[in-house]
């Protein structure tokens, strides 16, 4: 039916008074991709979304839809898009009238409209809810109606602004699941704003990290998460800083990378002697007691290390480890800290798979991650 569209932008700037709230050099959402825009509150995420969605005019810069420049006045372009926000913002009317809002604007005939509203509600798990008053729904139900209202338009670009931020984890889990399925089935390009990187990771294949209006990292989720470009981004994502190393050799597609004397195994194709950045997500690093016997397994990286520091991160612990000079970060649950008796100075064994390591040539880019 509809085909997803590529959305991109260059040089976007937006000021409120004298304060620049958005200053983003480049934004890219390939057709069919799901791009998460993450950052702390006040980073300009929602304003960026409003500009990309052609809802607000930027002070500078240009948005492109499938390569063609578009703006707030391009009603045709806007008709390819739809959005849902953190608060569902339902109109004072029935569920059916809310869901039909965009269809009416598109002059879809009444019978067809009824059919589409019905099937859209059924898809999102609200079969037969048409005649309820929209303002009497619970948070999770209202959010479903808001999603149905956007999805019924079969948008080629979908914008979601923290759609699950105010929901309980149980309600949220079901909704994330239903939404992910629909995005997959309908093949939309999706821009997803959130302040929760775990939520972002579970949905997006590309990530942009924003801070104070600027994009501080932008690229495939895996790269951004494993190779954050600076300390602030690393902290915000709860990641470690990338390590610097040199490719020492390669056997059957598995690289051996020399990081200050430690040899880390990673999957990739790079020439010997190449200077590289190496990153591992803290969640992917397993810790074992220093004297535990660990069998040969699919985890190619096994080192002895010393705990340097323990700190709380949300409701987990972040453990900084010294591998003969190279600093690695692991994330562990509080009960693991207790059971293993982790404390600074303690010796542990560190295990992670070669597939969990991300390697990038140092020469392939500077701040921006390709």
């Amino acid at each position, binding site marked *: 039916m509809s085909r997803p569209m590529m959305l991109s932008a260059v040089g976007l700037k937006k000021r409120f008074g004298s304060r620049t709230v958005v200053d983003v050099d480049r934004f890219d959402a390939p057709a069919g991709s799901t791009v998460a825009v993450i950052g702390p509150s006040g980073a300009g995420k929602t304003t960026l979304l409003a500009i990309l969605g052609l809802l607000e005019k930027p002070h500078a810069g240009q948005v492109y839809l499938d390569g063609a420049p578009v703006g707030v006045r391009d009603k045709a372009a806007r008709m390819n898009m739809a*959005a849902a926000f953190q608060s569902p*913002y339902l*109109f*004072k009317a029935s569920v059916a009238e809310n869901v039909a809002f965009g269809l009416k*604007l598109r002059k879809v005939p009444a019978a067809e409209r009824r059919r589409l509203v019905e099937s859209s509600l059924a898809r999102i798990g609200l079969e037969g809810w048409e005649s309820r008053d929209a*303002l009497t729904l619970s948070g999770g139900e209202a959010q479903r109606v808001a999603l149905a209202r956007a999805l019924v338009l079969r948008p080629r670009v979908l*914008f979601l602004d923290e759609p699950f931020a105010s929901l309980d984890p149980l309600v949220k889990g079901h909704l994330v699941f239903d939404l992910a399925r629909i995005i997959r089935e309908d093949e939309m390009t999706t821009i997803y704003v959130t302040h929760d990187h775990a939520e972002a990771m579970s949905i997006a294949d590309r990530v942009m990290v924003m801070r104070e209006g600027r994009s501080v990292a932008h690229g495939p989720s895996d790269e951004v998460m494993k190779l954050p470009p600076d300390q602030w981004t690393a902290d915000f994502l709860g990641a470690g800083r990338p390590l610097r190393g040199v490719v020492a050799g390669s056997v059957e597609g598995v690289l051996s990378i020399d990081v200050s004397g430690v040899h880390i195994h990673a999957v990739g194709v790079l020439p010997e002697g190449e200077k590289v950045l190496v990153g591992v997500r803290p969640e992917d690093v397993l810790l074992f007691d220093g004297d535990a016997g660990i069998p040969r397994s699919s985890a190619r990286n096994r080192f002895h290390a010393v705990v340097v520091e323990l700190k709380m991160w949300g409701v987990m612990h972040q453990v900084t480890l010294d591998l003969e000079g190279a600093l690695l970060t692991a994330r562990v649950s509080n009960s693991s800290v207790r059971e293993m008796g982790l404390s600074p100075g303690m010796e542990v064994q560190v295990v992670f798979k070669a597939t969990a390591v991300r390697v990038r040539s140092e020469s392939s880019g500077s701040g921006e991650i390709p």
Partner: protein
Amino acid sequence: MQVFFEAIVQAIRLPFEGSHGLLSVILTTFEVALLATLIGFILGTPVGLLIGASRFRGRGLLITLTNTGMAVPPVVIGLVVMMLLSRRGPLGPLELLYTVDAMVIAQVIISSPIIAGLTSSAVAAVPYRLRLQARSLGASWFQEALLILKEARLGVLAAVATGLGAVVRGVGAVLIVGGNIEGQTRVLTTAIVQESRRGEFGLAIALSLLLLAIVFAINAAITWFQHSGEKAGRG
């Protein structure tokens, strides 16, 4: 308390004692109030929508005009209209002074800024993201404006009722430009002033009870609009 007792007894008798110009007073009151409010609604609502829902050059001026209009005392409005319509004034040739039309003109100048101002508050209370949401679903600026008015409808109704209330309650402006001519431009408020100064408390009480009935009906409507608005509000 005898004075109150006598006056109330007299007030009850009055309607049965035939005409005291009572019917004329009531009809004139309604004519002026309804006409002035209708015109005030037609002029005030679009201005209120503009001020409350958009940013444009000249918005500051419009806000200042609205606020000034709400602040200017009715007697001053009466004076200005009086001068405009006086024999030597620019609209003198129309010979409107001491007519119902003169009173409507003065009352429109009183009600329009109230309706515009309260409409703008009601409209400004519609969440901006609700409007972004409508836009993102494909609404044009006109469809967005209709949606805003629909969402703020109870506030707009309360604004119109408040304008009506001000027109019905006020005395200064109509006293000046209407002249309180019996059978022609006498309305409830000016009649009350007249009768109470003459010591005709019975008639004054009768007129006051009528005025109170009208005012409380309007206030009940405002309260109902605001109350329904709260109940239907987003929690």
